């Protein structure tokens, strides 16, 4: 695997379209306006918050955003629709769930760099002989993958402290934060009759997040790592409420799981082989 192929392999347009549609669905769910209650730190300045809400939480703003997102999902308007949607969503980063929104917005920006085409253009044969041309080089997808790994790696980095690994911090958090749903005050996580020491939970969390940061890059471990990630986030939702971050991370697993490169490359290889066996082909 050369760096050239790693960054510039052609992306299968159908896979790009699948990721685009799914990303738009998640974006709509995560950014869905819930009124003033969604405001985050901006509420510290009441006048600014009122103005912000009047503009960016208005039905007109959300309608325009929805139109841009749906156009992007449908491949209408090319890259511009994705960038317009990103620009319209940008002010909403000031609201709650900023972290998950930020991750998804970056994914939208990256995915907007891939080429789209109208359904009519898509039905024409592409340069590789397939039914559709490539969606461009794969590096925007690599950015989405990098971001997902970075999120896990940053978590691991932040948790690699004696305080966290001993379980002390988790016990403290369970007693102080309202979004922690389990009681760890006696130093154990009670799973029915089983009492798991908190330090073991802390170490397991760090180990799993380390595996998620690395494992998705290894093709042979990809499916297993994704399953581990889904299980991890499902378990996490029972222990702590962290907004949409779980959904944002899990939805981006598709950037690793969809065969962006394989299909386009295989098709190109098939066409190349067909060409070489075609009558009159130079050998």
């Amino acid at each position, binding site marked *: 695997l050369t760096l050239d192929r790693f960054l510039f392999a052609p992306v299968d347009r159908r896979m790009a379209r699948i990721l685009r549609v799914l990303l738009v669905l998640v974006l709509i769910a995560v950014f869905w306006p819930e009124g003033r209650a969604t405001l985050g730190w901006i509420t510290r300045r009441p006048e600014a918050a009122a103005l912000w809400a009047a503009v960016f939480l208005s039905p007109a703003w959300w309608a325009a955003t929805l139109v841009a997102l749906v156009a992007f999902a449908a491949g209408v308007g090319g890259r511009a629709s994705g960038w317009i949607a990103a620009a319209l969503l940008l002010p909403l980063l000031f609201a709650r769930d900023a972290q998950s929104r930020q991750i998804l917005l970056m994914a939208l920006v990256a995915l907007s760099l891939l080429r789209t085409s109208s359904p009519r253009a898509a039905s024409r044969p592409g340069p590789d002989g397939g039914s559709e041309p490539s969606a*461009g*080089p794969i590096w925007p997808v690599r950015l989405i993958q*990098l971001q997902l790994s970075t999120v896990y790696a*940053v978590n691991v980095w932040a948790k690699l402290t004696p*305080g966290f690994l001993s379980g002390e911090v988790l016990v403290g958090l369970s007693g102080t934060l309202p979004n922690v749903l389990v009681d760890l005050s006696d130093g154990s996580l009670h799973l029915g009759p089983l009492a798991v020491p908190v330090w073991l939970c802390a170490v397991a969390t760090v180990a799993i997040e380390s595996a998620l940061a690395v494992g998705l890059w290894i093709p042979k471990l990809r499916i297993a790592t994704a399953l581990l990630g889904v299980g991890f986030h499902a378990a996490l939702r029972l222990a702590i409420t962290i907004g949409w971050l779980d959904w944002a991370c899990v939805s981006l697993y598709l950037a690793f799981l969809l065969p962006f490169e394989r299909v386009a490359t295989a098709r190109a290889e098939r066409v190349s082989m067909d060409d070489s066996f075609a009558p009159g082909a130079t050998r």
Partner: protein
Amino acid sequence: VDRFVTRSRRGDLLLLALLALLILGFAGRLRVYYQVPGWAKRAAEAEQTSQQPAARDAPDERTR
């Protein structure tokens, strides 16, 4: 040109580097968010703030 997002591979690499830096910069912000001592500190501050009126109204232990 059709192979690249920009008009050249160099342009693509430049854009890739810029966006990667942006992602890493955002990750730094996430690190602050996830920094465990930060969590604990913020939680303790929140707890202290929410208890302040009650503490003001409560009789001072030292006066007993």
